[in-house]
């Protein structure tokens, strides 16, 4: 029972970590981009993850709005399809980003953003995680006509799940580099290739004040990715491969996580 619970917790964590990306932000990590004032972003994303025999697919519809040139609000509606059989709309997520620092130069921009995301318990237990979670994060980005560099740190506060399971909180660290081999003009297709290093450290979960042996641990991923854009349309894709896995107990290691995102700015 505890093993199943820990797997379920891991799966939900994987789903929740995904999402909240803006084009010309990393695919898996957090970037500093915000939308222009009164800008609307529509976003359709597809995620797939596999750990052992546990395979999860998720698609999501996201809408974002630029409150100012430095402040964006976002709503995300995920649709999950698990091997276990649960299919349907999962917990809705609400997020916001605020760019508190920006330095612009000719053909380059450096910026830092604060990030907050909340996932209330809106879905049924088999499609959500029966808990309210939230994430705080900070992202830094350096973007030039050729090179991209991003770094981010996030901390996820996990709420108590069904059955009094106190899910362990999680740290996420991302270091990303990107390159545009051929600088493109406006209205031309633009390609940026990326390589991400994503680290995740999860604290152990507890059940009735007893630590669950098969919970928590550390994983590092190497994630090649690509963003392709044309004017106000973007496609992003990437795959995460586990390079270091130090999970407690008998948890399944992540085999891969893949993402495909389509984004329109209106």
């Amino acid at each position, binding site marked *: 029972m505890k093993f199943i619970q820990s797997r379920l917790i891991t799966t939900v964590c994987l789903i929740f970590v995904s999402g909240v990306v803006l084009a010309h932000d990393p695919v898996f990590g957090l970037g500093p981009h915000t939308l222009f004032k009164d800008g609307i972003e529509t976003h359709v994303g597809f995620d797939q993850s596999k750990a052992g025999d546990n395979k999860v697919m998720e698609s999501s519809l996201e809408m974002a709005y630029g409150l100012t040139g430095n402040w964006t609000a976002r709503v995300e509606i995920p649709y999950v399809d698990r091997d276990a059989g649960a299919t349907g709309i999962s917990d809705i997520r609400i997020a916001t980003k605020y760019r508190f620092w920006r330095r612009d*130069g000719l053909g380059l921009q450096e910026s830092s953003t604060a990030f907050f995301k909340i996932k209330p318990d809106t879905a049924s237990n088999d499609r959500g995680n029966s808990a309210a979670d939230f994430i705080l994060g900070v992202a830094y980005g350096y973007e030039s006509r050729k090179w991209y560099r991003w770094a981010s740190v996030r901390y996820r506060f996990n709420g108590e799940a069904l059955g009094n399971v106190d899910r362990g909180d999680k740290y996420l660290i991302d270091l990303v580099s990107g390159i545009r081999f051929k600088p493109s003009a406006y209205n031309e297709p633009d390609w940026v290739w990326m390589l991400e290093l994503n680290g995740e450290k999860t604290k152990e979960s507890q059940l009735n004040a007893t630590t669950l042996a098969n919970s928590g641990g550390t994983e590092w991923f190497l994630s090649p990715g690509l963003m392709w854009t044309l004017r106000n349309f973007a496609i992003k894709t990437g795959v995460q491969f586990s390079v270091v896995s130090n999970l407690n107990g008998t948890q399944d290691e992540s085999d891969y996580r893949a993402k495909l995102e389509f984004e329109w700015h209106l």
Partner: protein
Amino acid sequence: MKKILLLIIISLLWSTTLFAAGTQYDLRVDGLACPFCAYGIEKKLTKTEGVDSIAFDLEKGLVIVKVKEGMTLSEAQLKLLVEDSGFTMRSMTEKPII
């Protein structure tokens, strides 16, 4: 002779203003690293009354805005528009379109 030259110059300036087909604003904008990000400026300018065309030269950090005859844009207005798009306008030059 000097008077004739002065007259010619004044006439040319007068005719340029009179027969101008509009105004071109060249905005020097910092922060333009990618085409996708620059779309915010296009979107905002498209919504601005009188704007006829918009072009970008990302390498030079230039946004070239052409407005219809009889319409003008102020520097403050353009600076705010660029700021709301998430960039910084460094300078602006204005010239009539002949």
